[in-house]
């Protein structure tokens, strides 16, 4: 860790650096994406508190498991297809 001579004065902090911090280890449950049930509504993306759903060119991609805390909001809000959810929560380590 840096000493006082090396640190920017006044505790100035680099913008966006939390991106490097792993909160994935908090997870007790893991969201799993079932692509065939996905209608690409992106509700999961707009409601995720941890910016943990990747989207590319307007299309949903994989979870960002380094940041996902496993809250389950995405699974709760996912409408899925014909009553079948595109996100299910599974216990970690199972």
């Amino acid at each position: 860790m840096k000493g006082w001579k090396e640190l920017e004065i006044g505790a100035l902090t680099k913008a966006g650096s939390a991106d490097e911090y792993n909160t994935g280890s908090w997870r007790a449950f893991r969201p799993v994406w079932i692509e065939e049930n996905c209608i690409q509504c992106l509700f999961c993306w707009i409601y995720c508190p941890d910016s943990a759903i990747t989207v590319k060119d307007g299309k949903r991609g994989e979870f960002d498991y380094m940041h996902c805390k496993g809250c389950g909001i995405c699974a709760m809000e996912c409408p899925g297809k014909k009553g079948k959810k595109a996100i299910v929560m599974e216990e970690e380590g199972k």
Partner: protein
Amino acid sequence: MGKVLAVTGNQAIAEAMRQINPDVCAAYPITPSTEVMQRFAAFVADGKVDTELVTVESEHSAMSACIGASAAGGRVMTATSSQGLALMWEMLHIASGMRMPIVMTLVNRALSAPINIHGDHSDGMGARDCGWVQLWSENGQEAYDNLIQAIRIAEHEDVRLPAMVNMDGFIISHSIESMEFLPDDVVKDFIGEYKPKNPLLDIENPVTMGPLVLPDYFMEFKRQQHEAMLHVKDVVLEVAKEFEKVSGRSYGLFEAYRLDDAELAIVVLNSAAGTCKDVIDEYRDRGIKVGLLKPRLFRPFPYEEVAEALSGVKVIGVLDRAESFGGFGPMYMEIASAMMTNGSKPIMINKIYGLGGRDFMPEHAAMVIDELKEIAETGKVKLYKDYLGVRE
């Protein structure tokens, strides 16, 4: 050279602020400093300054807005007194911790209760540990000069700390004295352009200011503040030297008055120093070797230099215009600490005087010198700490 005018202390401060022309001022009225911001508001209204004046709803918000403005990336000033400073107290620490070079005039006034609007130093002394550079001023001229120099000190690359300039409420703030003002362009050149450091408004280079710092890093930032304070003495002297070139007036870390061969000495801040000097002259005429030390830089306190200046003195009377109930007055504690740095062991007494604007008269100064003389002769101290000018 500049103009000589007869003005009040507050007017002198407002005039310095007009010449400094800060980017933002955020202030709230409080006696006896109100006139500073009133006059400054008139400068803003008449277009004599470019300043954005933020007329906040409390002193707490005044200092908060000053910090926001300073963080945004420009020069920021304010003024307050007493309860106003007390309400700011939380934000004073934040201004210094975030390393914001805000410059504030503190027109010294007693703290309640009982409520009292007159001058003493309880407010400034209460802010002693807030991490601000503190300069103290005997009269309007010194306050004006100190304020202009404070800009350079606070903003100095090696310092980057907030600074407050103290001046006695009413005794100086409201009395008219003749003093010399520098020409506007001289002040402008002297202070120079403000150089922002990682400003918040630089949207191309976003920064996070004021994060949560846990025990793993907190102490490193405090050590940095200590380091900045260590640089202040040199910067104060360097700035004073340059100021002397443009003004002809010389300043140091403190003023030593007839101290060279003194056996007895008075240490006192601000306006009371003037009264003491006159009395010292009378005693000198009678062959009594008495001198005076008037600190200018109180934070950081120049311990070694003060000790050196007082090293030949046998008895010191430290006058405090503020109480530390159950302890010695704040100035006494500093002088006692200073004397530890060079091992000289003068006898020291402490007098609490002038609280809530109680007059400090020449006979009070004479009483102190008489007592110092008696102690020098007998080696006996009746009371180390006592009140001066109080009715039994």
